[in-house]
Structure formats: structure tokens, C-alpha cells
């Protein structure tokens, strides 16, 4: 594995592993994530994580519209199961360039390689399946930036690859 792009002078692998560990701990114990795993890949600058949050973390505004339409047609609520999410551990004092982020996104698939992460994608055919596509083929690349501060506070921010309009909240 090559040294991290963010800090070429200090190929401190232990530091990055510790960082991933802090975030893993925080996800599991503070945010009740389950099946959180460390993911390593030769073309990634560092260890990243993926896992399953207790409730749905992100709904694209267009998916929301599609879901509301489908709910109107069916006259019942569509359950919002949580999705598998990528997590990139970072420290607040790090400096990243657009090239660094692009390298991470290019190395990843939109959906993490979890046990049943492709389960929802099975039956996307049918008249009212527009909303289902957002969990499968239409899902854009997104990653949760888990930024650790020295007091081990972790702040979570979404980063999307490409132009993604903001949520209506």
C-alpha cells in the first residue's frame, strides 16, 4: 500500500489504523451501526469502513418524490430500510485535494460489498418500481466523511460524487 496522499511525509500506517478504529467504535457504540467492517483495497489510500445504520440515512430528493408517488398509488407506506453506507475516516487537521477525493470515489462502487446489499435490487421491474431504482442502479456514489477531532468527537458529513441537489429538510 502506498503512503496516504494527504500526508506523504509521514507514512504513519498505525495512525490511520487508529483513526479507522476510533470511527468504528463511534459508529458501533454511539450511532448503533451494525455489521460495520473495515475495508481495504490496494488502490485506496487508507482503510475505509462500511456498515448498516439503524435507520435510513440518506434519501435523494428525487427518490423521495418517486416514493411519495408510489405510496399514493398503493395507498400504503413504503418501508424505508437502512442502506449500506461507505465511511471514510479522516482527521480534522488533514488536508485533501479534489484529486485525493476523486481517487477514493474512483476506487469504490456505489454499493458496498456487504452480505445482502444487493437484495433490494432484485425486483426493479414493474409499473411502480421507479423508487426502487434509487437503491440499486440509480444510486449515486456517496461516502460519509467521518472527521475525528483530537477529543475523539466524530462529525459526519455526506460527500456526493457529482452534482447532487440538496435534500428538502
Amino acid at each position, binding site marked *: 500500500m502506498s503512503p496516504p496522499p494527504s500526508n506523504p511525509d509521514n507514512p504513519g500506517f498505525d495512525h490511520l489504523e487508529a483513526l479507522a478504529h476510533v470511527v468504528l467504535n463511534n459508529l458501533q457504540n454511539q450511532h448503533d451501526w451494525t455489521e460495520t467492517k473495515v475495508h481495504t483495497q490496494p488502490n485506496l489510500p487508507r482503510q475505509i469502513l462500511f456498515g448498516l445504520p439503524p435507520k435510513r440515512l440518506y434519501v435523494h430528493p428525487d427518490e423521495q418524490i418517486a416514493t411519495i408517488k408510489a405510496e399514493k398509488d398503493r395507498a400504503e407506506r413504503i418501508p424505508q430500510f437502512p442502506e449500506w453506507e461507505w465511511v471514510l475516516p479522516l482527521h480534522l487537521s488533514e488536508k485533501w*485535494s*479534489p*484529486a485525493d477525493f476523486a481517487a477514493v470515489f474512483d476506487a469504490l462502487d456505489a454499493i458496498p460489498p456487504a452480505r445482502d446489499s444487493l437484495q433490494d435490487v432484485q425486483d426493479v421491474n414493474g409499473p411502480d418500481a421507479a423508487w426502487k431504482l434509487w437503491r440499486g442502479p440509480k444510486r449515486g456514489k456517496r461516502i460519509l*466523511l467521518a*472527521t475525528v477531532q483530537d477529543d475523539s468527537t466524530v462529525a459526519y458529513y455526506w*460527500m*456526493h*460524487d457529482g452534482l447532487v441537489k440538496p435534500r428538502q*429538510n
Partner: protein
Amino acid sequence: MMATTERQVRISKIAGRYLVFDIEDVVYIRRQHGICSVFTGTMPQNPTQNIFLGLPVELYAEEARLLVDKGAGYIADDPADHLSQLKTLDETARKAYIQSLKSQRRTAQQVFLEAKAQSHAKHLSKRKPSSGAKLGKERKAANNESIVEEGADGGADAAESLFGVTKPSPPPAAAVGTVVVTKDTTTIPAITPTTSSVLIAPTKRNVPPEDPASYPLYAYLNARGYFITPGLRFGGDYSVYPGDPFRFHAHYLANSYGWDEKTLMLDLLTSGRLGTAVKKSFLFGAQNNNKKTNIEAEDGISNGTKKKNNDDDVRIFCIEWAGM
């Protein structure tokens, strides 16, 4: 250069700023090119005005460049143009200019009289004439409506004295369209034209556009139908609207970075947080120069001309607060 469109927007470069003085041009670039920019002109009577600003519109260097690249405009060195052209003006050109001023004044007079007649008719229909005393009051009010009284031919004198001096005064282009109405309606009102386009023909000595670092991001967003205004009020370089800002709220606040420009995570997160607080997404974009040179090498382009509409080398990321 791309195929030139019919209209050529005159972008006046004055003291390093790109200004558009012609209202037709302002409408054209807003409707056809998605550039709304910033009105910067104040009324001459109130130079400290900071709301409801008017002509001229000030363009970003990116916007000026975009118009030039699209073949929809040219950048003119306005002070130099005015100095040289006013000096070399011959008698017929002067007369033509004075004539055009007169026709503009007649139009202004017509417009004013029509508006006056309309408001008068409105008043009359509102208040039914019951007594002579009331009518007299109305007549008084109508007289007070004429705004500024002036000598019969003051406007024409001003226009002619423009050429009388050997050293021309600063270009009249910057003035805002004020209409000074004389009391006597048989003389035509004096006007201050917003542009000197009649006087100054398009010149060949165009100023080459700048190449701002954020131009690739600007062009990328503009090509996708986004409108861009200055982003300071939301904490970024640009505010990015999905359509005309009259109709939409901004979707993004945007910053442009270099491809290898290292940015502190704290800055990215604070911008993301700020964006979420105003219901926007924080967008940052960069142009991948390595990719660009690769593409150009493959295409065999070596003369350094910029390829248009080839913005697939721009990469965009959006940051939002995750809510956890």
C-alpha cells in the same frame, strides 16, 4: 472560435471591471446565456444607494470570458475607444449623433406624456368631479407632477458642448437614464442616454479575456443551465441556482479549487455545515489538468487553443451535513 451569434454584447472593460451598459444586452445574456450578474449602477443623485441598483451590470471575469468564448460578445477598452473616437469624429457623425439624441428625447417625451395621461385618467375615474374647487386642486397637483423645470433648450446645448471641448469629458455611457422634464410640453425633454453605442462603433481593438482559475467550474455549471451569482452571502465563491434566481432558491454554494490544491478538512466541513444551515449543498469543483492534457494529446491538439464544451475534465463533489 465557435459560430458567432447575431448579437454581439459590448463588454466595456473599465478600470479592470467588466461592465455592460446596454439594457438589451443585459436581457439577452440573461435569457440566452444564463448570466444574470450584478447590477451596480446608482442614481446620480444618490451615489450611496445600495439597494435597487440599476445599469451597468458588472460581469465576473469568468462571465466575460464565457461570452467571448461563445462568440456572443467582445471586450472593449472603453476609455481608450471613447478618447480616440471622439477626437476623430467628423461633422456628419456629430450631426447624426445629435439627431439620434433628439429622436430619443422625443420618444422619452411620448412615453412620459402617455404615462401622465394614463395616471390622470385614473385619477379622474377614481374621484368623480363633484365641485369646481376639487377640479382646481387636481389641476394644481398635475402641475406639481412635472419633475424638474429647465430652460427650453438646455439639453441640446449640453449635447453640442460635448464636442466643443478639445479634451472630451469622461464617457457619457456610465450615466443612468434620467429624464428631465420641462414644464412646457412643446419643448422636448433632456435625457441622459445609458449607452454611447450610437457614438462608438464596435472596434477591432478588443481586449483579450482573462483566464480566471475558476473558469472551468463556472463554464461547467453554466453549460448545465445553472445561474450563478456571487456567493459571499452564503459563504462561498458562487451561489448556484437551478434556473433564474427570480424563480428559484439557490441549490448550492460553490467553491473552485485547483486539482491538487490541498484544502483543510475544517474548511470543507464548515462550508458544508454552513450550506446545510441555509438549505443548500456545498459544492466544490476542480479541473483535472492531467486529464485535459491527455485528451488534447490524443486529439493531436497542440496549438493551445481551448476546446469548448469539453468540460468532462471538471469534477464536482457535494458536501452536506449527515444529520448524525
